[in-house]
C-alpha cells in the first residue's frame, strides 16, 4: 500500500476505535460468563438442545419444495462444505436490496426467488431449523463480516443504535455491555453482548431463538419499543455487533442462560 494511502487508512482505523469500546484483547464471549454446567451443555452435541433444530434443518435442507420443486441441497450440495464460514460473515451486503441482510433474510430470499416457496415467518420452527443448520457449519471459525464502502454506512447506523439512549429507562446498550460488563444485574452477570453463538438455545426461552429475538427482548427490558423483526435498525445492529465481535470464535448453536 502506498504511504499516503496507508496513513489515511491508519487515521480512519484509529478514528473508528472509540475510547469506550472494549479493547480487543479483553473481549469475552458470553460462554466465558456461564457456569461450568451450562458450558458443558453447549459443548456436548448430544446434551445441546440446539442440535435438535440443527438436525431438523439438515432434513429440511434435503426437502424439495415450492413451484421450482427444488431443495437447498440441489444448488448447495452438502451444507458442511458449501455453508462453511457462511454464518460467520453475516449480515452481508445484498446487491439486489442495496443493503446488508441477515442470514434469516438470505434463507428466505433464496426460498422465494430460487425455490418458488413462501418466506418462512420470523422465529418459526422451520426458519430456526434452517438457520441453525447453516450456522452450525461455522462453529469453531472466526467471525468476520465484510466492512467496505457499501456496508460502512449501515455499520455506523448500527453503532449509533448501540450507543443511543432509549426507552423509559433511558439506557444505551453500550452502558451495560461496554461499560459495565462483568458486573451483576439482578443476580445475573452482564455479558459483553457478542453474538458469538446465534441462533442460541436460551434456557430462559426453553427454546432456540434468533439474535433478533434476543435484541427485541433486551429492548423490552429497557422499556423501549422493540423494532419489528426484520427492521433495518435490527439488521444494522446485528452487523455492528458481528463487527464488534470480529475475530472471535463462532459457537452456534450456543446455549445461554
Amino acid at each position: 500500500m502506498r504511504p499516503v494511502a496507508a496513513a489515511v487508512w491508519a487515521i480512519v482505523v484509529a478514528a473508528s476505535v472509540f475510547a469506550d469500546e472494549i479493547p480487543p484483547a479483553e473481549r469475552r464471549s458470553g460462554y466465558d460468563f456461564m457456569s461450568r454446567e451450562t458450558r458443558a451443555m453447549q459443548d456436548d452435541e448430544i446434551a445441546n438442545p440446539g442440535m435438535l433444530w440443527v438436525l431438523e434443518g439438515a432434513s429440511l435442507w434435503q426437502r424439495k419444495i415450492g413451484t421450482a420443486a427444488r431443495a437447498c441441497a440441489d444448488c448447495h450440495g452438502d451444507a458442511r462444505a458449501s455453508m462453511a464460514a457462511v454464518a460467520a460473515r453475516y449480515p452481508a451486503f445484498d446487491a439486489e436490496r442495496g443493503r446488508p441482510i441477515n442470514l434469516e433474510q438470505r434463507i428466505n430470499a433464496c426460498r422465494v426467488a430460487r425455490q418458488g416457496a413462501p418466506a418462512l415467518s420470523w422465529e418459526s420452527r422451520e426458519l430456526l431449523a434452517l438457520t441453525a443448520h447453516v450456522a452450525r457449519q461455522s462453529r469453531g471459525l472466526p467471525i468476520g463480516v465484510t466492512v467496505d464502502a457499501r456496508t460502512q454506512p449501515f455499520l455506523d447506523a448500527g453503532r449509533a443504535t448501540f450507543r443511543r439512549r432509549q426507552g423509559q429507562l433511558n439506557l444505551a446498550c453500550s452502558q451495560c455491555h461496554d461499560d459495565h460488563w462483568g458486573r451483576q444485574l439482578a443476580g445475573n452477570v452482564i455479558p459483553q453482548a457478542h453474538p458469538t453463538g446465534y441462533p442460541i438455545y436460551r434456557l430462559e426461552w426453553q427454546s432456540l431463538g434468533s439474535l433478533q429475538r434476543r435484541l427485541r427482548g433486551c429492548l423490552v427490558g429497557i422499556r423501549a419499543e422493540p423494532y419489528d423483526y426484520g427492521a433495518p435498525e435490527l439488521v444494522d445492529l446485528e452487523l455492528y455487533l458481528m463487527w464488534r465481535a470480529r475475530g472471535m470464535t463462532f459457537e452456534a448453536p450456543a446455549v445461554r442462560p
Partner: protein
Amino acid sequence: MANALISVPARARRGEIIEIKTLVSHPMETGYRRTQLGARIPRDIIRLFVCTYNGTEIFRAELHPAIAANPFIVFPTVATESGTLTFQWTGDNGFSATESAAITVE
C-alpha cells in the same frame, strides 16, 4: 421437529459398562403457565421413557413436569451382546417417539 438424538458407542467389549445419552424434542409444558390473557396452558409432557436391549427392558424413567424441556437422560447399561437398543418416549396427548441404535459387542 427432529425427534431425538442418541449417543451409544458403536462397539463395546462384553461386560463393559457403557453410557447412553438421550435427548428428545418436547416442550414439557408444565400446566402451570398462563397466557397473557390469564388462561392456563394445559399440561403436555412426556410421562415415560423406556429403553430395551434386544427386547429386554433395561431402564425406565417416569417423568413429571419438573423435567426440563427437551428431556435429557443419561444412564448406563452393561454391554451384554450385539444387537439393538430401542428407546421409546410416551406422554400426554398420545405423544409417542421411538429411536433405535445398533451396538456391536465383542
